[in-house]
């Protein structure tokens, strides 16, 4: 994806989040992640993205 396309992806994601609304936000984002997992060339690519997305976030309590 070119930087210009990535920027459009950013904007479309923002617009989709606004269209979906706050209630279904988490479900929407999780569905999106699953569909993108299917679009990944292999599991390693998806696992790397999962790790990167988690990095820097505080782990949930109880873990």
């Amino acid at each position, binding site marked *: 994806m070119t*930087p210009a396309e990535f920027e459009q992806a950013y904007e479309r*994601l*923002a617009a989709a989040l606004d*269209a979906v609304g*706050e209630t279904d936000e988490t479900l929407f984002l999780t569905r999106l992640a699953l569909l993108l997992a299917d679009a990944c060339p292999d599991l390693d690519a998806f696992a790397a993205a999962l790790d990167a997305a988690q990095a820097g976030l505080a782990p949930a309590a109880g873990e």
Partner: protein
Amino acid sequence: MPRPRGQTQSLYYEYPRYVSAPAPELGGEASRHAVAIVGAGPVGLCAALTLARHGVPSVVLDAKTSVGEGSRAICIARHSVEIFQQLGVAGRFLGKALPWTDGTSYYREQPVYRLRMPHGPDERYYPMYNLQQQYIEQYLVEAAQATGLVDLRWGHALDTLRLADDTAMLEVESPQGRYHLRASYLVAADGAHSRVRHQLGLKLAGAAYEGRYVIVDVQMRSSYPTERRAFFDPVANRGATILVHKQPDDIWRIDYQLRDDEDEQEALSEREIRARVGAIVAMLGERAPWQLEWWSLYKAYTLCLDGYRHGPVLFAGDAAHLVPIFGVRGLNSGLADAADLGWKLAMQVQGRAGPHLLDSYTPERRGATLDVFAQAGRSTRFMTPPSRGERLVRDAALSLAAGHDCARRLLDPRQSQPYSYAASPLTTPDDDCSLFAGGPTPGAALANARLDDDTFLLDGLGREFTLFAFGDAAPGDADRAALATVARDAGVDLELRCLAAGTPAAARCGVAEGGVLLVRPDRHVCARWRHADVARVGAALQRALGRSPA
């Protein structure tokens, strides 16, 4: 608006007092002027100076008797300095302004993006300079006075305006009384609340953004270099943003965003501003004492007129458009309006313009405004996300920026760039762009590239049109004579500059071995060829003067 001291009292700047003189029209006939300009802000002054450069006198009215109050626009882009060079004020500007190239964006406490604006040894000017707007206005005023062609009328305010038979009929209020003035052309450079716009019943259209900023200048000694600092979600303004810029005279510009729940009145109280600025100064790690100089509230708009020409009236600067400060385009785009309008209006007044020249002002400059809206609109949404979705994606990008290029690139503040008049009716498109290795495509501004130790391409820009011929494309004696003839037929001066090929300047122009660029008075390329064919140069000149329909 409250001020730390009285109006136009400053810790570092002595506001000039301009004398308000009685108008010759007082009590007498409403004399007719070729050009009247309403507003001696930077844009009106730049228009007057450009007209004067082409030998056209103007009357400039301004309601106040000094330069504008407060530092307002502080970031001046390279392309504006190139305009100053043509107007003879670049020297003074450079003697005072602080040049810079870099910037840092922080997310919380971590630097996540490094801005590096393109710069190199073959550039004449830095990509950006910081200087308070009142200095810029003062330099422009003094240059305008020196021309002997600009009738500056301080304390004279436009009250009513009527258009009759393609003439602007002005009623002016001055300390010595009211008078009438007629002008064949009127430049409306009277700022955001343009009286001219109201008198003609015209409205700005577009969008307003939610984000509000308090803009504060403080005097403080600091050795921190001149660069742009942007803070997202910093400790001194959680949930919001801060921008910090250095100015001459130990003045620092601090813009901090108000959170949605903050009350404007309360936020603009001196006590509150002192508290907020104190926290920001501490966050910056500065220990020196600081003093408040000036402050103001700012909201981002992308608003403009549908057309910049209304019969004999031409709108420029804030009177024509309001743009967000992010990417520093407010003043910079107004100066480009004046540079574009100035030469066209001069040709028009002198009877040398084709029937379509003045009409090209709207597509060129409104086109530039819409481009600014697209660029600055994105920067504004990134700085102040207008919806929950935009905020979520923005915050996600910020939190990924430290480790991921894809997200980091989104932090580019997209600083002001000159707009290309590629789609203008004045521009002759390339016959064959494959003959050029990059360089300015027709419509783009000529780069001010190095020729030798101390000369640069724009030093050779003529007052009217210029033909830059590189390397083997330099015309022979017969062609030179023929070129002089086509220029005479077009009614303009055409300077010929023959330059060597194989130089950095030739490379920047995309003509490594040779080529020819025809350049307008405002340094925009209107046509280019591998070799100068005299008939084509003549046709392109006619077109650039508005003699062919759009």
